[in-house]
């Protein structure tokens, strides 16, 4: 192909496939709702959220442990730290051959120390305990 395409052009197939998948899923969901039996009367027992056959107690308004929220926040911090290692990891082998491997190792060593300090502090402050 002679024309110059932007780098994001390689994502066009992903978009096409996503649209195909959405169409496929929609056809399935709509199709089964046409094929299946219809609800004639409003059946209270059937429409109730599942509760082992007894009248429902407690709803989704009930409280969820704050630990989940904390886990998600910690995940974002650590995930960003790990993503910083990716470009470094790709260039590491090249830089060893260039003779700058020691510098690269030291720089990442400093970063890993910060990472470990963060993890140790997290464990010490009991942010990861689920009791």
């Amino acid at each position, binding site marked *: 192909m002679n024309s110059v395409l932007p780098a994001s052009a*390689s994502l066009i197939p992903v978009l096409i*496939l996503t649209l195909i*998948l959405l169409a496929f899923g929609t056809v399935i969901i709509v199709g*089964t709702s046409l094929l299946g039996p219809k609800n004639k009367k409003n059946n209270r027992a059937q429409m*109730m959220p599942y509760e082992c056959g007894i009248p429902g107690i407690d709803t989704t308004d009930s409280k969820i442990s704050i630990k989940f929220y904390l886990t998600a926040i910690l995940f974002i911090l650590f*995930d960003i730290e790990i993503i910083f290692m990716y470009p470094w990891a790709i260039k590491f082998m090249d830089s060893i051959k260039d003779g700058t*491997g020691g510098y690269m190792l030291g720089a990442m*060593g400093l970063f890993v120390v910060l990472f470990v300090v963060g*993890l140790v502090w997290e464990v010490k402050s009991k942010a990861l305990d689920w009791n």
Partner: protein
Amino acid sequence: MGRDSFEITVNIVKMFAIFLLMVQAVPILVWLERRGSAFIQNRTGPNRVGPLGLIQLLADAVKFLFKQPFMPERGVAPLYYFAPIAALIPGALALNAIPLSTPIKIEPFEMLGQMWGPYTFLFQGYDIGIGIVFILGISSLGVYSILLAGWGSSNKYSLMGAVRGAAQGISYELALSLALVGILMVYGTLSFKEIVDAQAGPLTFMAFGKEYVIGALPNWGIFYQPLGALIFFAATFAEANRLPFDLPEAEGELVAGFHTEYAGFSLLLFYIGEYGHMMVASALLATFYFGGYSIPFVSPEAVNAFWLAKVDGANTAAILTAVTHHLSLLVRVALFLWIFIHVRWTLPRFRYDQLMSLGWKTMLPWALANVVVTAIWLWLGHRT
């Protein structure tokens, strides 16, 4: 129809075919799971419908089609109906980004009184240069379908399962992406094809400035990254919500977890998503650590020469070469899928606090240690 539109059509059909490959593998895997669990637990398993019960899942699928679809009261309809569709997307997008075999080079040929070609068709949906980052990003989207299902169902079991699933998914994502840093250091690329190409030939490694060659072993990533491979495999169990990490659907506590309120085909879509996730994990494990689609000690050129001598026509030989390599990958994928199933029926489930402390306090430090040791080892080995 011009030659470009032929190429585009083939590529779109190919993407859909890889998606269908994922969908059609689900009945086989469910059958294998049922028969396998029966074998492990000394039972018979499904054996009535068809030989060895093979058509059981076809019968189930037809039954699923005619089930009554309904949403529980106070459910959130857009979320409830969108969640199973969203479950399809991560697995299918990720599977399409993995090279499943060598590219097929088609020389010019005549069809419908017109010359076509030459073409090069990749044996994968699309080749994104930064394939590994793309897969990591896409597979984390799996959390969304779980959360949408949990919130949309207005059921407390669904919600608890969904919150657990999201928390464990993101926790093990850390160990998983950190385990891959070792692979990136060894191969220095984000492209799957280059990683597979680098694993050809006998095992060659550098230690303290000298090169050693072990002729008896293939040049697979597992020999460079044994701990990384173990962490990666363990983390994929948690990502795919499989036992021993299936807390989101722990049936003793949460009925069926996030898909408690689903029935019929929308439940099946969740299963397609889960088994798709397992297939992606197996294919990734094969690609990173077990040579991908390459055949140990045999180069793609040798396979092509073999087929050229057997059949006439370079195009037929190119297609047969790709199919041979594809089978080589499928053998590995099938083996890992069996390990997934075997582990599910062998190991007991973790408790939730054990699960989280395994992910954060054991696997994350070990993955970090793997990175540090790999870096120092590479530096000592290749330093000039």
